[in-house]
């Protein structure tokens, strides 16, 4: 289990992380989402020891993480980087050995991963001569070549073509099924929603929501009030028809539909009866917000989120 416990970090006067806390269980794929500058990269860098935290602790298997344990992590930084003038194979072997593999293990792993990621025939070429897509594949191989027990990947899907996205997803799932805690950040929320067991949403350096996507949905965002959103299509209804219905806290019009927010524990059938009273009702649905919408609600609208 990888635990990030109360980690804080400042850059001068800028507060980058404030009491960041979450954990990733073995065999769990954890998606880390948040706006640019929310603190995802800083968190990952602190996990890897590339940055020092001002406060808080990172634990792996219950013990504070140290240099030896960090070697067991596979890391893909947001800013991709390899030695441009070093051949692919040589580079992967070097990185594997830096992580503690023997020369023979490094060679075998290099062959295995370059084959798996489809860059085996490029093994003798300098990295700078590869196409961007192939450089990305080599970058992933660099994160995996020492057979890590934990994966920490910063934006692993950015810049990948659809085929590579599938390969990457498959590899993440596979490491996860092998019992590794896997955490990755991404702006591709549909992908996160589809792939991840759990999701954490970060804002201003703190974790504002985490859990399974359906859990997050059930709370309809993250304000914790249990309010639900209902979309009603009643073409004959006059504007503001829902405002007087008991339990309605807000309503707005989206295209020709009315989006109504109901307080927790309010019977939605009251609302349906009120809608039917205005005329025909073509649609009456609970909105199950996608991760994108959850994300917007949590992060995008700061004024609302701050008030909640």
């Amino acid at each position, binding site marked *: 289990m990888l635990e990030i416990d109360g980690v804080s970090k400042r850059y001068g006067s800028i507060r980058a992380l404030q009491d960041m806390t979450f954990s990733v269980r073995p065999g769990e794929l954890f998606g880390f989402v948040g706006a640019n500058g929310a603190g995802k990269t800083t968190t990952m*860098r602190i996990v*890897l*020891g590339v940055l020092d935290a001002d406060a808080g602790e990172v634990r792996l298997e219950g013990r504070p993480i140290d240099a030896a344990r960090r070697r067991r992590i596979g890391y893909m*930084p947001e800013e991709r*980087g390899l*030695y*441009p003038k070093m051949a692919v194979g040589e580079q992967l072997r070097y990185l594997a050995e830096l992580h503690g593999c023997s020369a023979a293990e490094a060679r075998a792993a290099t062959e295995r991963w370059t084959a798996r990621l489809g860059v085996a025939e490029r093994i003798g070429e300098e990295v700078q001569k590869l196409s961007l897509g192939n450089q990305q594949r080599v970058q992933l191989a*660099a994160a995996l070549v020492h057979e890590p027990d934990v994966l920490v990947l910063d934006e692993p899907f950015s810049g990948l073509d659809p085929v590579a996205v599938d390969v990457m997803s498959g590899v993440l799932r596979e490491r996860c099924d092998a019992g590794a805690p896997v955490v990755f950040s991404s702006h591709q929320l549909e992908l996160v929603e589809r792939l991840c067991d759990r999701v954490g949403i970060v804002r201003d350096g703190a974790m504002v929501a985490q859990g399974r996507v359906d859990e997050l949905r059930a709370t309809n965002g993250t304000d914790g009030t249990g309010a639900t959103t209902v979309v009603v299509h009643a073409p004959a209804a006059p504007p503001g028809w829902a405002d007087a219905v008991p339990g309605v806290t807000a309503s707005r019009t989206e295209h020709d539909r009315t989006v109504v927010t109901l307080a927790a524990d309010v019977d939605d059938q009251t609302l349906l009866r009120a809608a039917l009273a205005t005329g025909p009702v073509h649609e009456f649905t609970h909105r199950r917000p996608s991760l994108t919408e959850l994300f917007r609600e949590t992060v995008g609208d700061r004024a609302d989120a701050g008030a909640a």
Partner: protein
Amino acid sequence: MRTVLLITRREFLARVRGRAFIVSTAVILLILVGYSIFIGSIGAGGDSGTTTIAVAPETEAITPALRTAADDQGRIVRVVPVADAAAGRALVAAGDADAALSGSPTRPRVDVETSLGSAAGSVVTVATTFVAQQQLLPDPAAADAAVAAAQPVVVAARPDDPARGLRIGLGAFGAFLLFFSIQTYGAMVAQGVVEEKSSRVVEIVLATVRPWQLLLGKVLGLGAVGLLQLVILSGVGLGVAGTAGLLVAGAGLAGTLVSVLVWYLIGFALYATVYAALGSLVSRQEDTQSVLTPVSIVVLVGFAVGFNLVVSAPQSTALTVMSLIPPWTPLIMPARMALGGVPVWQVVAAFVLTLAFTAGVLALGGRVYARSVLRTGARVSWREALRGR
């Protein structure tokens, strides 16, 4: 430790396999060979001018023999008759004559300032033999003995170390090699640091190794490349010097080589760390030069001033003082030691001062490097790099 060695190996192989290493070695070799030939030609050229010889009255009989010997050997000898031996010595002291002959024409005393050049020496020696042959001795055996005994006795006013020229050459050569190696490989350390920063690979590497390990591995790796080149150059340099006849036993060659290598190691550790720390402040290769310039100037001044003083005024106070100032010590002290005559306390003081200074630079440079190497974008200011946590 394995980590550091892995990094060292990568740095070493990446450079030694590179074209730059082969090209720079070849270029330096050319300069070296040119330099040796130049020095050699200066040494040979000293004998080609006119030799002025003062001759005292009692030695006057040698004068025709001197002219004959000079003609035979294609030398121009001007003979100046003087009133007595003392007058001859005065001419030599004043620099108006190269040698003053006095005493018996067959075994003349030859007064010179520092040494009798080989050409002039040969002329005088042959002349004494001529004089001995012309003595009409009845007994052939006695005549042979007289000829065999005929020989000038050279007395130098200020006897010269026969290896002095070579010592200066060695000192200058050592200073040049140190300057070149420190400049070249120190700058390579900085370039390597910036390359890792600009390609962002440093973040992957630092996720598994500590900054000091990366820095140490880099300095060791490039230091080893520099050392390899130094050994190649010294070896070839000695070979060239040997064939050019510049080697004289007793010039302390072995000692000089050892001291150049030891000072290289200290000097390289010192400057490579400074260069690495400076390199870590910038993120783009284009900015490297500007951030290195102040230190390059310190190295260049130390080398240029030191080199000139070694050649022109090896005993000067200025050189002594410079050789005791730590950043310059590794550039100048080995040259002074090659010249000889450096008091032991100065060598010890230079060594201790430089080691202490290097230790300080390592601590500070390592700190700057660790703080700056992950900061990309704008140049990191010194204040940020040094500020305590």
